[in-house]
């Protein structure tokens, strides 16, 4: 029998396990490189050229160029690594986290000021909370649909 992965049924959540880590190895190692100021400069000067120095998949490069953190995560990115991209862009952790929900910055900030997202309906896939797939994207982007 394979190992138990009980965390597969939590909505809107990817657990960074060995499988994800293997998938995202070069994407995450690229992110680590942005901890050096000179690499941040080189990346900002020509993002595509800098990305091409890394053994990332084309999809991973596209996800980074698009600054789509959910997409980055699906291709094996981990938020603590991806945060180095946000830092390079001058973004805060709140801006980065919010960007994954579809909310505007203000909507997300207000949600947090009001006590954050409730766990109600968001514990198991198939419930009806705001983090469930059927309610994406959230916020004004979601309401447009």
């Amino acid at each position: 029998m394979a190992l138990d992965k009980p965390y597969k049924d939590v909505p809107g959540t990817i657990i960074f396990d060995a499988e994800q880590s293997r998938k995202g190895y070069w994407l995450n190692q690229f992110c680590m490189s942005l901890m050096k100021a000179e690499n941040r400069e080189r990346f900002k000067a020509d993002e595509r050229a800098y990305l091409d120095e890394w053994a990332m998949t084309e999809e991973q490069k596209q996800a980074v160029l698009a600054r789509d953190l959910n997409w980055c995560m699906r291709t094996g990115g981990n938020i603590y690594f991806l945060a180095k991209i946000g830092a390079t862009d001058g973004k805060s952790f709140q801006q980065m986290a919010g960007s994954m929900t579809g909310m505007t910055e203000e909507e997300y900030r207000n949600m947090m000021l009001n006590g954050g997202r409730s766990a109600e309906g968001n514990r198991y896939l198939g419930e009806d909370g705001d983090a469930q797939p059927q309610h994406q994207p959230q916020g004004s982007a979601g309401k447009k649909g």
Partner: protein
Amino acid sequence: MARITASVYTSHVPAIGAAIDLGKTQEDYWKPLFAGYDFSKQWMKDNKPDVIFLVYNDHATAFSLDLIPTFAIGTAAEYQPADEGWGPRPVPKVIGHPELASHIAQSVIQQDFDLTIVNKMEVDHGLTVPLSLMCGQPEAWPCPVIPFAVNVVQYPVPSGQRCYNLGKAIRKAVESFDQDLNVQIWGTGGMSHQLQGARAGLINRDWDNAWLDQLINDPEAAAATPHIDYVREAGSEGIELVMWLIARGAMADVAGGPAPKLAHRFYHVPASNTAVGHVILENS
């Protein structure tokens, strides 16, 4: 003989560090949070330790995917604050305690904990933000610090029970050190938060406070919390709370001594994406 006199628990949100470094602590958003640490700063002055054993996690800073230690103990003479992408925090460098750290490493490995010994490492907000919260903005940190990094980034992370048992082993190690040192053990990270995906921003005030009750009064029960409960109830990054169990396991009552004194308890939402919890327990 060295002894553990107290344990301190606190979240280590990076935005808190930024608020301190940028002089924003008196802004409306941050004021109630920092007010919760006024007691703690005074308490630190009144209860200055000789060494802080600081349990935290590295956030893809010192450790990349090239090498991921489950438990890493710093035995170096000093540690520089890392550049996590925003530039290094303008805080003092961290002075280590190589003798005590090596002693603890030796003792704890002989108690069947398979530590990684680290002599060169930069430290990130996981370690420096708790120091800032408890000590403010001094020219130098008040005492040497032994960094103890726990993997909570790549699964599987160590279980709460494993962490709690490690705390017991650390207490034995400290008490077998010849020098007469006042040692505090700090557990950091948590409480409920999720930084990723459609579920980002999850906060669970009730669960957090019930877990704090357990941590204080029934630590065995807190230690028995399975990983999946942290994820489901406290968000994917809520798993950081296992680190608090290392500090709790090192308290005297766990080894048959008297119950600790609850010197301070504080809870606040939000700091950026996170619920901030903070407790100080004293051994009598």
